[in-house]
């Protein structure tokens, strides 16, 4: 399948880029690495009259430390993230999550901005035009039915980006730049939870994601990302979870974050689990309790080949393992 026709622009600075998006309102696509967009265009899931490439805007490619924050330009590739000394040292969970995306062939061009803006996925949606033409067009592709739930005008396609749970666990915020406005918002607030328009840019805000700002974690923070997928070599997560804990050396945990991908139309933070853990000493019993509580906050829908129950089972195992790993608690078994 070849790409449809489009007109291609390569703005050389942000001003030029935002001028173009406001001029082409609703008729353009933004291309970063293109690893997701190219496939969607080949599948005729996106037909943009104009493509605006962010390749030639050097300001989007830096990674720097500023005051107590690390600022990552949206056009850094996942390889850049994995190989960055600052990220290796200060944000190991992000490094690990970026490394889990796809395969080396993708990470060499796929960007962190593209990962954050990644559209939600579904087995009835991410298919060729030919495959999809055997059924009525579903809600996300512009129709009115949902082949997963049989509901009308609702879509439960799943958010599957790998780096986002780690970024939310680190309390990341993002900068969105439009033609005459710039705003900063917490990354968690970027997501809408609506499978049709899962983030504010896809909802049509006419903005470019320019940078990600992450407060440098204090020394007493530990974190890990665990991902489960069908093929180890190259696959989207069926479930992914980032777990961060603060002050665990002090015996009593001062703060904790448990953030999932793959289980809803947005990243999901297990808030009850967080409350449960704070102030407690991490024991095998508490780990079991917290994991069970975290999983009770998940409501996956069958948008891939795994049943919701199976996903919850996997999520339970991943959270338990992640809590043991960050808390240094042994369960007496090899796993």
């Amino acid at each position: 399948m070849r790409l449809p026709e489009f007109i291609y622009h390569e703005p050389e600075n942000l001003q030029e880029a935002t001028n173009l998006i406001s001029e082409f309102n609703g008729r353009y696509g933004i291309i970063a690495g293109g690893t997701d967009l190219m496939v969607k265009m080949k599948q005729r899931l996106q037909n943009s009259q104009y493509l605006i490439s962010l390749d030639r805007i050097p300001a989007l490619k830096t990674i720097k430390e500023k005051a107590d924050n690390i600022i990552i330009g949206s056009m850094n590739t996942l390889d850049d993230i994995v190989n960055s000394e600052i990220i290796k040292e200060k944000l190991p969970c992000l490094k690990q999550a970026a490394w889990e995306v796809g395969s080396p062939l993708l990470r060499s061009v796929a960007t962190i901005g593209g990962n954050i803006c990644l559209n939600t996925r579904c087995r009835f949606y991410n298919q060729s035009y030919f495959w999809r033409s055997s059924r009525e067009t579903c809600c996300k592709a512009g129709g009115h039915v949902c082949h997963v739930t049989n509901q009308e005008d609702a879509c439960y396609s799943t958010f599957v980006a790998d780096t986002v749970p780690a970024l939310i666990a680190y309390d990341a915020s993002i900068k969105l730049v439009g033609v005459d406005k710039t705003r900063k918002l917490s990354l968690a607030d970027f997501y809408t939870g609506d499978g049709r328009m899962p983030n504010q840019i896809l909802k049509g805000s006419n903005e470019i994601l320019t940078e990600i700002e992450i407060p440098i974690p204090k020394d007493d923070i530990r974190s890990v990302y665990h991902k489960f997928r069908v093929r180890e070599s190259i696959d989207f997560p069926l479930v992914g979870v980032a777990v961060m804990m603060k002050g665990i050396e002090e015996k009593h945990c001062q703060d904790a974050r448990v953030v999932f991908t793959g289980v809803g139309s947005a990243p999901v933070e297990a808030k009850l689990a967080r409350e449960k853990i704070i102030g407690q000493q991490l024991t095998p019993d508490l780990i079991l309790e917290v994991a069970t509580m975290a999983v009770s906050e998940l409501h996956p829908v069958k948008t891939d080949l795994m049943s919701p129950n199976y996903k919850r089972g996997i999520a339970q195992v991943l959270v338990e393992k992640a809590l043991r790993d960050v808390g240094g608690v042994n369960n007496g078994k090899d796993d």
Partner: protein
Amino acid sequence: MEKTINLTVNGETRSIAVDVNQTLLEVLREDLGLTGTKKGCNQGECGACTVLMDGKPVSSCLVLAVKADGKTVMTIEGVAKDGSLHPIQETFNQKGAIQCGFCTPGMILTTKNLLDKNPNPSLGEIKEAISGNICRCTGYVQIIEAITSLAKEKNARGGV
């Protein structure tokens, strides 16, 4: 819409007018006649279309040709020198790491990139490096054997 791009392919500087909706894979195969680069899935899953762009392995079916403007590209045709196969190609042959051959160009380029960066990869590093190159035939065992023996030979030669 057409655009002229300048790129270096296998050491040769080229200036080509491409349609902006052509992928690098299409330009290599159809405009430059470099059909050693294969089209498998055409959607980033199989690695048959792997080329090295500015020294990094990429799936050329996902890269717009216009994005290769100003870049250096190496395809499988650029690996052999003066009519003789590269040691990686020789070793793949000898070790039976090639069956139908469809994944081979991509596999060789990924291997070249790995060994150029890391002459002494562990088994885990080898598996990770070729994780985006899918082979239907060999079961990977011979491919991994070939790469392991190349690393050993390279070390024995002092890294060249």
